């Protein structure tokens, strides 16, 4: 089963990078994209698109992942393009709206930044397994152990949430099929009936999931799960290519900070 943004098996430099490097780079680049001047954000975006192309993931997969957000992307662009003051290019006869050059430019850069953030997030999730991601999050949260934050428990909670996600979807499909099998035809029903059906579906699915979660907790206990520190199958080790990427990213970011202040 494929879910939008879920890991796809592959082989490339991006895939082989340590998950900590990927997570840190994604966060840094995201902050940078939002913070720097539009022109520099544009260059960072180009670099990000190059990384996406080099990742070995098909462009179609990126397009599939972006598709559900297309409406928001267009909306963001239109809002900026139509509601910005500046030299009018085209006047729209309704509601006194006008399309300005400044508006189009702003709309383009806002959408560009938004797209960059999405691409960065997709690139991270498509090339990193959930367990690698959990290991990376656990690594970065480690210092919080000093403040008695239950880092290991948080990692297990994330793992269980990810595990229960497909179970939740399967449970929903199962209940829906059972309802249809008993002659429940929602397409021919009115609004009130649909709301009732939705409530009944939600309650049944939730009850089923709670029951499964109870059983899962019992199974975890049977396998000696206790709160607190655990060891891990996942061994995080930085390789020479990780160090090279780290240095490259560091240099890259320093140059952009310098350029940003120069153009500022």
């Amino acid at each position, binding site marked *: 089963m494929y879910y939008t943004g879920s890991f796809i098996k592959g082989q490339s430099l991006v895939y082989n990078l340590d998950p900590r490097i990927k997570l840190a780079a994604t966060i840094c680049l995201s902050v940078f994209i939002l913070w720097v001047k539009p022109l520099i954000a544009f260059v960072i975006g180009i670099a990000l698109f190059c990384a996406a192309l080099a990742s070995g993931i098909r462009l179609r997969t990126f397009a599939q992942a972006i598709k559900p957000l297309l409406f928001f992307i267009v909306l963001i662009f239109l809002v900026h393009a139509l509601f910005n003051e500046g030299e009018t290019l085209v006047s729209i006869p309704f509601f006194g709206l006008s399309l300005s050059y400044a508006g189009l430019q702003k709309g383009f850069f806002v959408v560009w930044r938004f797209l960059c953030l999405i691409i960065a997030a997709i690139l991270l999730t498509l090339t990193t397994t959930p367990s690698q991601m959990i290991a990376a999050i656990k690594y970065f949260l480690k210092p919080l152990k000093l403040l008695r934050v239950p880092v290991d428990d948080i990692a297990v909670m994330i793992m269980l949430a990810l595990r229960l996600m497909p179970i939740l979807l399967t449970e929903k499909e199962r209940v829906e099929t059972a309802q249809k099998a008993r002659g429940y035809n929602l397409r021919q029903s009115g609004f009130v009936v649909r709301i009732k059906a939705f409530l009944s579906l939600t309650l049944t699915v939730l009850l089923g999931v709670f029951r*499964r979660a109870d059983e899962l907790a019992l199974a975890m*206990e049977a*396998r*000696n799960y206790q709160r607190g520190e655990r*060891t*891990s199958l996942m061994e995080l080790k930085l390789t020479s290519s990780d160090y090279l990427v780290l240095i490259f990213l560091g240099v890259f970011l320093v140059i952009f900070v310098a350029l940003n202040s120069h153009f500022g």
Partner: protein
Amino acid sequence: MIILEDVYYKYEPEGIEALRGVSLQIREGEHLALIGPNGCGKTTLIRHLNALLLPTSGKVTVGGFNTNDPTHQADIRSLVGMVFQNPDNQIVGMTVEEDVAFGPENLRLPTVEIKKRVAEALIRVGISELACRNIENLSGGEKRLVAIAGVLAMRPRYIALDEPAAFLDPTATKRVLDIIDRLHFEGVGIIHITHNMAEAALTQRIVVMNEGRVYLDGTPREIFGKIDMLKQIGMQLPQITELLIKLKESGFSVRTDIVNMEDALEQIRSITGKIKV
């Protein structure tokens, strides 16, 4: 050795008494089938074996450790592995190897040892090639094997299995039962809940439960010889035994305490002299 002494268990707040004075001894390396009608306390009983449930009264001792003693819970859970009825409710990891590693990770073993145990457990159940596969892409039978491997990675001396062949097709059932047989051959004690009498007949010992009590306890031959007692609580006999009973009722001189195919064929051969295997 696992020893249950006069164990009572009551589910609260419903107040349902699921076990009523169960006393049982399970030897290391023994293959035991636990059978009985629905709601007779089979699942409740096996959940006592690795301290998932603690007796309301009475005592359960596993390898000398009392399950009521919280300081030995980890030891007990390493000694007795538990395979639940629905593997979907047991599997924690996203991929096969991650799930199998869950137990050893809880035992706080070093990464090298975890990797070794995961590889070993996957080989024992014959699914090494599935190590990196996503759990959601596995068949029901494969998920069952992952659940067994997850328990084996903790190197238990006993494995309690709650209907390990439920909802499986004949091929997957055979694969699971063959693995259980092999584990028994390797010296792992097996406690195996089943509703399939043919499966029960293949074990060394059968414990029949009814209304929270041990109703019968003996070898398959002894148990399936007590036809009236079994029928009294709605239990069926293995089909092969039923066949011999019908033959006897039709006037043929055959033994009816037969539970396996080889002995049954021997009996049938003796009355016809024609069947060749």
